[in-house]
């Protein structure tokens, strides 16, 4: 099998847009199932009362990580053709911190705000408009901050390359880390529920 299919020319750009829509449906469906269209559920993550965000995200990362590892191992997927964004470590860490502030202040991230507004939540709609405003501010400031934006470039680099260990070793490490995080999350929820009188939000 030659995958990624699109990169091997199995279908045209126009068809890829239909694929995008279908994949988007799956994405939005799963986010809503997980409770991610609800700002209170998302924010509860940061008060340790409901650890769904961590459980869903980490399970998703582990599932896709193992899948792509296995498919590349047996030669079905050419991993070099799966897009990997370049690392610019300092702007990405600073951007992540700002995004984290925005997460706990606004209660969503861009993707979850779409699901929220699709299920009728005003706060999700207002949040998405806020994102547009933030992008506009970034765009206007871009000429002044582009030096910082392109600082500390490290190219396309994976954790295994950076640490100098094998791909499989990192996959195993992330799986173990996830299992540990799940155990801690289940335990933490019980502790917080006891503190709050037996209610898991």
């Amino acid at each position, binding site marked *: 099998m030659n995958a990624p299919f699109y990169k091997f020319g199995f279908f045209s750009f126009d068809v890829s847009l239909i694929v995008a829509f279908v994949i988007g449906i799956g994405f*939005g469906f799963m986010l809503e199932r997980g409770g991610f269209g609800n700002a209170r559920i998302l924010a509860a993550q940061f008060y340790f009362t409901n650890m769904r965000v961590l459980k869903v995200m980490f399970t998703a990362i582990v599932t896709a990580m193992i899948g792509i590892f296995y498919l590349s191992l047996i030669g079905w997927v050419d991993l070099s053709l799966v897009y990997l964004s370049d690392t610019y470590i300092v702007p990405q860490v600073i951007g992540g911190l700002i995004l*984290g502030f925005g997460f706990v202040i*606004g209660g969503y991230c861009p993707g979850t705000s779409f699901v929220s507004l699709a299920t009728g939540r005003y706060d999700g709609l207002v949040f998405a408009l806020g994102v547009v405003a933030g992008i506009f501010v970034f765009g206007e400031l871009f000429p002044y901050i582009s030096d910082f934006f392109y600082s500390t470039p490290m190219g396309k680099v994976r954790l295994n390359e950076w640490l100098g260990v094998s791909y499989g070793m990192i996959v195993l490490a992330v799986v173990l880390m996830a299992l540990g995080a799940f155990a801690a999350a289940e335990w933490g929820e019980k502790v917080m529920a006891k503190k709050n009188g037996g209610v898991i939000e």
Partner: protein
Amino acid sequence: MTSLTHVLTKFKTAAGEKSHEHVVEAKPYSNPYYVGVGLGLVLLAAFVIMGRGLGASGALSTVTALTVNTVAPSHAEGNQFYQGYLGDGTTNPLKDWLVFEVLGVLAGGFLSGIFAGRIKVKVEKGPRISSKKRLVFAFLGGALMGFGAKLARGCTSGQALTGGALLNLGSWAFMMAVFAGAYAFAYFMRRQWT
């Protein structure tokens, strides 16, 4: 006109009565581990079929760039950031993979909400804050998120989820920073949520 108002009033009354009767009981959210596997398979499908991951903020960047270009074309022309989303002019910028994916996200979220009886016009907030204040915070949080996502070259979808599964170094550093930022600031926001 009168008949429309009449219908609207009737509709409002009916909706008001409905909420008392609890006609549609919202189902509880699904098991997070099952949802995680489902989400992971969607992401894996994107890798295998398209050779790319999921995204969200990129579509809003296209919308932003298009708006600026419509209002002030010469201004947008001189800005490298907007130009990146406007393309070379041969195709409409809205004919974009992420834009179509986000349209799907809206549809998928709506479908799931319908099936579970969770479509509800309301403001999600904690018990100790007014709706107006909550919306102000939603806008501010969104603005920070938009700025941060552009600086980090992606949001929770494009970096944390996609880059996380591909073991991208920058994505993992980004993800740690997101959680660190949110936990560090959670104390100051507790009145909004708890």
